[in-house]
C-alpha cells in the first residue's frame, strides 16, 4: 500500500550499547492496519528495536517516523500519545492496581482534569471519572474479564494478566500495537486463543509482533521480518521468509558453529 503514509517508518535505526551494536541500520515501514511479525534468534535485537521505536533507548543513528511526523526526539510518553501502544514481555503492568483501575489508567491521556479540580471533586471531575469507569467496564466485557474487575493484578494468573494487558492496550485505541513476546509464558492452548484475542482488540490498528514462537507469529502476521545480529535479513510474506536460506541459517546456526 505505497499510496498511504505508513503509520510507522523506521529509517536506518542503529542502537549501540557501549561497543555492541544491538540494532544495525534497520529500516522498515508499517502500513495502516498491517500486521508485521518480527522473528529472530536470541540477541537478534528484536526487543531493542521495539524499545527504540517507543523511545526507551536512544538511537545512535536513524529516524523513527509516526504517521509521517518525525518522532525521533520525542519522549516515550509523547510517542504513546501519538498513537504507539506497547505491551511488555513481563506483562507485569501495575501489580497493586485492580483490573478495573488498570483499564481506567489506560485512559489517562484522554482525561483533562488536574490536581486542584480533583482535590476539590468538582462536578466536571466526577463526570469524567464516571465516563472512564464506564468505558473500562465495557472494554472488560469485550474480553470476558468482567469477573476479575476488583482483583489486583498481582493476584491474577499470567495468562489472565496478559489478557488484561491487551485490553489495557486496546483501551487507548492506538494507531499501532507493538507486542513484545505476547506468547511467552503462555501454554500452547492459550497461545491459540491469543491470536484471536489480538484480532478482536486491535480494531483497525496496525500491529508489530515479535516472538520466539514462529508458528504463532507467522499465523498472525501478513508480513514477516527476520532479524539476526541486529540486521534485517529477510522481509516479505511469511511463507517466503521462512524458506529464506539466511533465516534458516540464523535459526539453525551458521557454518562456524556447526
Amino acid at each position, binding site marked *: 500500500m505505497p499510496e498511504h503514509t505508513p503509520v510507522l517508518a523506521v529509517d536506518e535505526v542503529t542502537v549501540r550499547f557501549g561497543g555492541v551494536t544491538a540494532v544495525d541500520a534497520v529500516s522498515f515501514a508499517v502500513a495502516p492496519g498491517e500486521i508485521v511479525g518480527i522473528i529472530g534468534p536470541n540477541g537478534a535485537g528484536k526487543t531493542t528495536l521495539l524499545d527504540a521505536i517507543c523511545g526507551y533507548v536512544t538511537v545512535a543513528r536513524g529516524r523513527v517516523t509516526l504517521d509521517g511526523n518525525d518522532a525521533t526526539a520525542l519522549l516515550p510518553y509523547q510517542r504513546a500519545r501519538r498513537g504507539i501502544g506497547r505491551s*511488555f514481555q513481563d506483562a507485569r*503492568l501495575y501489580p*497493586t492496581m485492580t483490573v478495573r483501575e488498570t483499564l481506567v489508567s*489506560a485512559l489517562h491521556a484522554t482525561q483533562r482534569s488536574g490536581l486542584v479540580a*480533583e*482535590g476539590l471533586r468538582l462536578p466536571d471531575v466526577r463526570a469524567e*471519572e464516571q465516563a472512564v469507569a464506564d468505558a473500562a467496564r465495557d472494554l472488560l466485557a469485550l474480553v470476558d474479564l468482567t469477573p476479575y474487575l476488583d482483583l489486583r493484578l498481582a493476584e491474577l494468573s499470567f495468562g489472565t494478566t496478559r489478557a488484561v494487558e491487551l485490553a489495557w492496550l486496546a483501551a487507548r485505541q492506538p494507531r499501532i500495537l507493538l507486542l513484545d513476546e505476547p506468547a511467552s509464558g503462555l501454554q500452547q*492452548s492459550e497461545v491459540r486463543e491469543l491470536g484471536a484475542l489480538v484480532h478482536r482488540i486491535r480494531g483497525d490498528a496496525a500491529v508489530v509482533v515479535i516472538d520466539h514462537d514462529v508458528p504463532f507469529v507467522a499465523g498472525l502476521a501478513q508480513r514477516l521480518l527476520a532479524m539476526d545480529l541486529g540486521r534485517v535479513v529477510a522481509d516479505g510474506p511469511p511463507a517466503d521468509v521462512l524458506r529464506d536460506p539466511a533465516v534458516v541459517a540464523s535459526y539453525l546456526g551458521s557454518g562456524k558453529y556447526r
Partner: protein
Amino acid sequence: MIWAQYAIFGLGVGAVFALLAAGIVLVYRASGVLNFAHASIGVTGAYIDYSLLEHHAGLPVGVALAIAMAAGALTGVLSYRLVFERVAHTSQVTKLIASFGLSGVLQGGIGVVFGRIGTPTTRGHTLLPVERGVTVAGAGVPYQRIAVILVGIAAALGIAALLRFSEFGIQLRALAQNPLAARLAGVDDRRIQTITWAIAGSSSVLAAVLVLPFGPFNPLALNGFQLKAFAAALLGGFVSLPASLAGGVGLGVAQELLVGAPAPFNGLRTVLATALILVLLFLRVERFFVSEQEARAVQGDERLFTGGSRVPVVGSPRAWLAGAAVVAAATMTMSGFWAFVTTRAALYALLALSLVVLTGWTGQVSLMPGTFAGVGACLAWVLGTKLGFAFPVVIPLAGLATIPVVGIVGVAAVRLRPLYLAVATLAFAGLFDDTLFQQHWFANGGAELVTNRPTLLTGDHAFAAAVIGIAGALFAFTAGFARTRTGRAFRMVRDNDRAAEAAGVNPAKYRLLAFAISAFYAGVMGALLAYLLRTFTVEEFSFLVLSLAAFGIAAVGGIRTPAGAIVGAFAFVELTEVFRSSGAVSDWSTVAVGLGIVLVMGRTPDGIVGVAQRAWSRLRPRRRAVLAPVLEPSGA
C-alpha cells in the same frame, strides 16, 4: 607552612571518610542496604570506648578500642539478624527506611543508656596523647592526627583487599551479582552477610574513635562524616571500593584546604559535599568505575510496596471533613492540655500525610520532610512575627514558599532512581541546616523564635479547632485526588514507570507534582506547629526529631493510606506524653519511633490500618467470584 598542616588535617578526615565509605559499600553489596545507620553504629561503639576509659582508670586505650570494636561488630550482626535479614525480600526503599529506624533506635538508645555524656565540651579519648607530635613544614602535628591517617587508610585498604582477594570477598561478590547461582554453588549467604555486618560495624567504631576526639562528642557527631562518606561512596556507585576510597581521601583534603582559602572561597567548605553529591549524581560519574552489569546486579528491586494484600482504604473527602468536624468538636470538651496534645497529633498526621503521597503513593524517599516543615516554621516567624502578616496569609504562603525549593530538589527527583534521590535529599537537608537555618534574617541564627497567635485563636481550644479544620481540609483534598486521574498516575509511576509512559503518563511531571504536594503539606504543618509551640528553635525541625517521627508514624500507621497517618500520629503523640511523664522524652521516643519503623517495615507495608483492614474483611463473608481462565480454548 600552614598549607601542609591543612593537607595533613585533610588526609586525616579523608581517611575517616574512606573508612566509613568502605563499610557502607561492603554492606550495600552484600545486603542491598544503603545503611543510613552506619554512623550510628560507630557512635554507639565510641560511647562504649569513652565510658570504659572514664570508669576504669588505667585501662589501656587499645583494650578499650578492641572491646568497643567488638561491640560494634556485635551491633552490626544484630542489625542484620534482627532487622535487615527480615526485610531481605523487600524493596531497597523499604530497607532504606528500616535503616532510618535503626539509626533512631541507636541514637536514642545512646541517650537512654549513657545519659548526660555529650555536653558541648566533651571530647573523646585519643589513642595517643595530643600534646606530643612531630613538626611538619614548621607546623606541629599531633601523633593522633598521624595515627588517624595511617590507621584509617590502612583499615580502608584492608577492607578493599579483603573484598578483592579473600575467599570471603569472592563469595560476597558472587552473592551480590547472582544470589541464586551463588547459593547453588554452595555460598552460605547468611554467613557471608553476618561477617560483612561485623566488619562494617567494627570499622565504623574505629572511624568514630579515631575522629571524634577532634570535635564535639554527641550521638549525632558522626552524621556529618557519614554524609561525606556517602558522597565518596557515590563516586563508585556504592559498588566500587577503590573509587570510594579515593573519593573519601580526595574530599577530605579538598575540604580542609578550603579552610585556608581566602574569604569568599572558604565558605564553600560547608557546601562542598552537597555540591559534590549533586555533581556526581547528575553526571552519573559512577559509570566510569562500575560496569552497568555490576551496578544493576546489586540494585535489585527498587520498586516500593508492590506487596500488601489489600487495596488500601482512602475514604471519601466528605467523610474526612465530617471526621475533622467531630474531632474538632470533641476537643472543645477536653482540657486545654489535651486540646494541645490533639492539635499536635493532627499536625504530625499532616506531616505523615506528606509521606503517604510522596513515599507511599509515588515511591520516592525524601529525607527532607523536617526541612520543609522548618522552612514553614521560620516563615511563620519572618512573615508573621517580623513583618506582621496575618495568620490566614502566613499559612498558605508557608506552604507555597516550599515550591521553589521543590523546583531545585525536584530536578534531581525526576532524574534519579529512588536510592540516589534519598542521598540527594540527605545532602540538601544538610545544606539547608548549614546555610539557610543559620541565617539571622530567616532563623534568628538558630536562636529561639517566637510566634504570636491571632487574637481569635489565642486559646488552645480555638487554635485546636483551626488546626484540625485546616488538616481535615488537606486530608479531604488528598482523598479527592487519591483515586482519580492524578492519584492513579502516581501509582502507575510507582509500580512500573515504563508502563506508565506507555499509557501517555509523563513520569517526571508526576514525580515532581508529588514532591510539591508533600512539600506544601510539610510547609503548612511547620508554620502551624510554630504557632502551636509559640517559641521554638530550628533544631526541633531536624531529621532526627521531625523527619524520623514522620517516617515512624507513616510506617506504623500504614504508609499507603491517609488513615495510617492519623492512627500513627495519635499513637506517637500518646506515646511521647507517656514518656514525658517519665522524663527523658526525646531519647525514649526516638527509640520507640525507630523500633516502630524497624518492626513494621517489611512485615506489612500497610501498618496498623492494614492489619485492621484485614481483620475487618475476615469478619465479613468475602464474596469470591468463581473465576474461569480467560485465555482458554473456547471449544474446550
